[in-house]
């Protein structure tokens, strides 16, 4: 009987296409649509903050260089991972990530909580030539980042595009994007105070690449690496393995 129906079906091209669409859509609809409607999917957290323009630019460099191909940003709910990298990742921590960078491969270690674990200086030395700091490393060197000035003039449109996909940047943040990016990497400038005003007192304002007069791609990337895992403290609360949030001043 089934065969009879199929014999009919395989005689009409359009009918066959419709049957394919029907069979193939069920899985995706059942698994994806509820992720938007079930409230427990993403935890509610008070202290979740946005990426500053400099950190967002750093994130875009992380994407551009394909760092995600070798580094995950997702600590799984497994004992050895929690002990190696820190509390397991929560959904809320990538709430403002468009796209997410959970990764699929660890040729290098997970970076979900690398923020604050190493000094800015270590990161710059490591990115300039990883084998200077970790002799066994097979990571490419990114020395040119420190030589390349960061493009600042279009950061406002980046923030605006982020807002249109749902990240709550304010008009003020969008307007001041370029100033804030400059200020975050040049601590002595007059623009520096605006960054902490808009993004919170705990925002790290620093000459990330060691040069306090100009903003390079190295500044942006290190600023991004230093915020990883520190947008919210939620993962450190109510966890089986209590731990302090790393503090870069230690």
């Amino acid at each position, binding site marked *: 009987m089934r065969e009879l129906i199929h014999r009919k079906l395989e005689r009409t091209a359009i009918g066959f296409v419709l049957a394919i669409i029907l069979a*193939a859509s069920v899985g995706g609809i059942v*698994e994806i649509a509820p992720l938007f409607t079930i409230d427990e999917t993403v935890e509610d957290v008070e202290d979740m903050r946005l990426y500053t323009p400099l950190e967002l630019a750093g994130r875009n460099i992380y994407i551009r260089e394909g760092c995600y191909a070798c580094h995950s940003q997702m600590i799984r709910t497994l004992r050895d991972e929690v002990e190696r990298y820190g509390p*397991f990742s929560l959904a809320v921590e990538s*709430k403002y990530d468009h796209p997410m960078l959970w990764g*699929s491969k660890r*040729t290098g270690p997970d970076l979900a909580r690398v923020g604050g674990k190493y000094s800015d200086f270590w990161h710059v030395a490591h990115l300039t030539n990883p084998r200077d700091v970790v002799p066994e490393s097979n990571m490419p060197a990114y020395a040119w980042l420190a030589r390349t000035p960061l493009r600042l003039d279009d950061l406002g449109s980046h923030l605006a*595009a982020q807002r249109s996909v*749902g990240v709550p940047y304010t008009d003020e943040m969008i307007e001041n994007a370029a100033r804030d990016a400059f200020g975050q990497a040049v601590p002595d400038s007059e623009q520096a105070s605006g960054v902490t005003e808009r993004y919170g007192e705990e925002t790290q304002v620093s000459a990330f690449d060691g040069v306090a007069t100009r903003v390079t791609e190295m500044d942006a990337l290190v600023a991004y690496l230093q915020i990883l895992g520190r947008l919210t403290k939620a993962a450190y609360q109510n966890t089986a393995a209590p731990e302090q949030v790393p503090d870069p001043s230690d």
Partner: protein
Amino acid sequence: MGQLTTRERDLAAAILLVLAIVGIAMAAAGRFDPIGVHGAIVLLYSLGLLYLIMSSSFGPPPDPSRISRYYDDPIKVGVWFTLLWAIFGMFIGVWAAAQLAWPSLNFDTAWASFGRIRPAHTTGVIFGFGGNALITTSFHVVQRTSRARLADQLSPWFVLFGYNLFCIVAVTGYFMGVTQSKEYAEAEWYADLWLVIVWVTYFVLYIRTLARRREPHIYVANWYYLAFIVVVAILHIINNLTVPVSLGHAKSYTIWPGVQDSMVQWWYGHNAVAFFLTAGFLAMLYYYLPKRAERPIFSYRLSILSFWGITFFYMWAGSHHLHYTALPHWVQNLGMTFSVMLLVPSWASAGNALLTLNGAWHKVRDDATLRFIMMAAFFYGLSTFEGSFLAVRPVNSLSHYTDWTVGHVHAGALGWVALITYGSLYTLVPAIWKRERMYSAALVEVHFWLAFAGTVIYVFAMWNSGIIQGLMWRTYTGEGTLAYSFVDSLVAMYPYYIARAFGGLLFLIGAVVATYNIWMTVRGVPALAERHEDVPVAAHLADGAATGPAE
């Protein structure tokens, strides 16, 4: 292009002019951005094709009797695209593999660093090599199994050259750092939009050709090609919904946030495997295997079972890429369950293929081409079993993030996708160029053993490295502390990374041998006497108005 009418040539020229203007606009709007370089590439590409069209515009009108024959010219060009992308993609792959063992092999340049060439490798082999192989063979198979000429003369060229423009823009973009970072969907918004246009044309062409068929039933191979075309369109559109920063920026931001993005991405990612790398290549299997073995497919019922099983089950399986992550547990469980069930239709396909060979095993021994196809079916069975196994949560806790996944993917990509493609090409090339045989049967044999040895070395190296890596990460000392630092596990990987690069190199050499052999076949092997049987049935009726009895 000698078969195009004057009107079709004019239309082609008009399309290329529009494309050239789009290229100029992109170059102007994006003069401070990589999108400007892509504008220049689009412009050059369209002008180059325009030159080809214009230089043939005063040629003689096409032979009216062409309508009563199959349209094989686009297939011939597609074969070359396939072969060249294979060499390019595999070369980048070997290079990337070597960089993992010797990191200075990027020569301190940005464009050649691992993170940028890795997507160039994956796109080069999946979309460049695999995609061109699928489009090319689908044009061949749909005509032969429908006994009808392609429904249109211009759109096959549009699909072929348009698709390759997408691949070129995607790959050149990665070298410049233009990427969405979504694995296997790295190409940015404008390339994605272009692919939608190309893909819709492809679908319309395919369905129109099927509508002209002179067989009441649509053959199994076409079910798979249809599933490939339709579902890839759905996946591509949904995963690539983005908001560009501006029309002058290559950069865009996906509309999907965090955890939802992870699910959409791996729903896409896993079904790119399912409908690009499985369904499309099963279509090749269902046509070229019975052709080459000269045996009918073992079981029609198994074909139905496996087709609908694959179409339905695969779409649920993507979340097995996200075990133990912040994705809700219920989705992970669904993904695992369906991944395990997927073994049934997968092995039904592989078994159906191998049982088809009953009564033809002596040919597998003597004919390296048939051995390619047989070994592909074997690796298909192997890697689908491995896939279901790796999707089980406790197994995945060990294998995920390690080289085991990479080994699994390559068991499928080298052992299944590439072997079935070369087996199909060795069958297709003499048929459409109407040659008596391949230039050298010995070189086919050499290619088989290079490809087989390369695959086995690669996969064993990655199994070993992946399992060692996974175990080292979770090993505890007697005192209850982690036994190995991350760097310890990396140091243990180096021998396997070298072995893997060597396996890949063997496979690449095989691809070069194949290209040479096919080149010499087209150049030097005597043509067959006119093959009277290779024309559509009732060719004298083929004016496009007549329809098959079943429609």
